[in-house]
């Protein structure tokens, strides 16, 4: 479903990713692990199309469509969702308004009918309850004054409502206490589906106790240096990234 070939990305003329290749088939969850500065967030931003992340080579396709030719909203409409490491605050815009505008924008881009207000509320109420979120919180300005855990839960709620083909979770575990981590992970696991792929980016193995990946890749110095099953994450937890940092250097 997601197919990346020899992708190179530079930020302010500094190369961050160089010749990265990766395939994530439908129905699978892949984890990307790596030391700080390896380019993990750069990969997620480049896939989502953040301005300033300049693709200098290679390709990335979702369901065969060239992602790199699309603007961020078109990639979203194609089914790409990015759960941000640091979710952005939007003052004056209630979370519900934001979410409904986003959902309808995607529907419109795909030529589907707008969702009615009652259907939308039903959908959101159900997903919010599953994530143990207080519905009243959704009437507040998006992410403004939310705790770190609330922001992450809000990201997962958005993912659940927008129901993407490909979900990229960037450091979703950072800033979460153990209870929040469990709830968020359950939310993510509930989204696993045969027609959906997930890319879980994390520094620590801890998250992978809850979200069990089909494959683990090690990203170091801008490229994938090792791939394996879930046991690779455990090895990294034991032995650290040293071996891969040296191998890449």
């Amino acid at each position: 479903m997601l197919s990346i070939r020899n992708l190179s990305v530079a930020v302010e003329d500094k190369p961050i990713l160089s010749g990265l290749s990766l395939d994530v088939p439908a129905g699978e969850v892949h984890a990307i692990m790596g030391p700080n500065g390896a380019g993990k967030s750069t990969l997620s931003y480049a896939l989502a199309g953040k301005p300033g992340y300049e693709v200098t080579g290679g390709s990335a396709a979702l369901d065969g469509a060239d992602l790199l030719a699309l603007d961020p909203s078109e990639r979203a409409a194609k089914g790409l969702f990015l759960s941000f490491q640091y979710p952005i605050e939007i003052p004056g815009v209630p979370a519900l308004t934001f979410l409904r505008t986003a959902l309808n924008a995607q529907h419109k881009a795909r030529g589907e009918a707008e969702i009615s207000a009652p259907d939308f509320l039903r959908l959101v109420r159900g997903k919010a309850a599953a994530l143990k979120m207080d519905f009243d919180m959704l009437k507040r300005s998006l992410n403004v004054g939310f705790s770190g855990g609330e922001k992450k839960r809000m990201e997962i709620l958005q993912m659940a409502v927008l129901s993407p083909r490909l979900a990229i979770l960037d450091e979703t575990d950072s800033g979460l206490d153990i209870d929040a981590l469990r709830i968020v992970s359950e939310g993510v696991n509930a989204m696993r589906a045969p027609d959906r792929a997930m890319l879980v980016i994390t520094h620590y193995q801890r998250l992978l106790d809850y979200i069990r990946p089909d494959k683990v890749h090690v990203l170091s110095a801008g490229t994938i240096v090792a791939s394996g099953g879930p046991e690779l994450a455990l090895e990294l937890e034991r032995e650290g990234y040293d071996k891969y940092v040296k191998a890449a250097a």
Partner: protein
Amino acid sequence: MAAVAQTTEQVLELERYKHGFVSEIDQEFAPKGLSEATVRFISAKKGEPEWMLEWRLEAYRRWLALEEPTWARVGYPKIDYQDAYYYAAPKEKTGPKSLDEVDPELLAVYEKLGISLKEQEVLAGVEGAPRYAVDAVFDSVSVVTTFKKELSAAGVIFCSMSEAIRDHGDLVRQYLGSVVPQSDNYFACLNSAVFSDGSFVYVPPGVRCPMELSTYFRINAAESGQFERTLIIADKGAYVSYLEGCTAPMRDENQLHAAVVELVVLDDAEIKYSTVQNWYPGDKEGRGGIYNFVTKRADCRGDRSKVSWTQVETGSAITWKYPSCVLRGEGSSGEFYSIAITNNRQQADTGTKMIHLGANTRSRIIAKGISAGHSSSTYRGLVSAHPKAKGARNFTQCDSLLIGKHCAAHTTPYIEARNASAKFEHEATTTRLSDDQLFYAMQRGLSQEEAVQLLVNGFVKDVLQELPMEFAVEAQKLVAISLEGSVG
């Protein structure tokens, strides 16, 4: 190819300002230029009493001695006051008329603008929906005022200024110029000499006006100015909510709009005055557009009286206006909620004055400025407390949002507290529309335009919610149209 692109651009421009059409209405004009004869011509056209003509002539003489102000942060070529028409009116007999007598062509113009002047249609609307009485001012004259019968049953007088001068001379004579004196400033003085029409409202003691009142101003004629004068009096314990809307055709030359609005509020009375100003702003290069030089002031004469100004300013090439409150009555209060949007080459210098004269007076200012393109926006505000204004309080919040790299926002607050018990608070922020916010919204599926709209609507929410419901929806759309193409 370039020509094709240019044409496309022009067509887009047309679509953006959808009120830019010119109507072929048979009109008559005063001779071009400004002189004592022009003033006499206008007064005679309206069949005014002698005292009114004298008042105008006095204003004209005072105006000759005044100088055009230069302190505002706006720039424009010198205005040739002799090169304009000071009176333009649809050719028809004057005098009050019913809807049936109004030129159907004129009714069609207002229909095109989305303003219904047909009472039956409004009446036949959804049950429980708020109703609006409308005074429609076309260039220099009021063409019709709706719902007069129903309003007069409640004791409310709502009519054109010309009619008020004729039929309610005592009230007009008592209050006209009592809030904004003839020689208050250059443009107000000019208005006092040549004002042509406008709305007059009187709400008697203890009456809550049964519906929203509104005036819709339309400049149609070329090379003409519009000088309307509005006077609203809320007698003791009265309440009225008044809305004002304005549009003009797209023309390459600049047109002057110098209006005066006076509000008089007696004991325990309240006036809520809302404006959605959408005069033609000029094109992308800054050609054409309205010079909107307006004086608006409320006099809270009565104890516990209250005034609330809400304005959404999206149009005009240049806006120069400071809706103000003189808080004279003990415990009186004034509010000012403003959204000022400038795009392309527009300039706005706008704000408010809260003048605390009475004890325990309160005021609140929320001003939101949005600048895009090569525009410039200035908030200019005065908050002052007289020695007698013990316990006066003010809260001011000024926020500026910049879109793009070539616009400017300025905040110029003047604060004078001349007694120790006054408590004034001032908060100000300036932010740039953040790339991170835009990307976040686009990642969720919003197009760039939709993302800008959503973020801007969030920024102005505090003010939008002060507008009457229907106006808020209209204003929200206007905000979106005004900022189209401002990013990227």
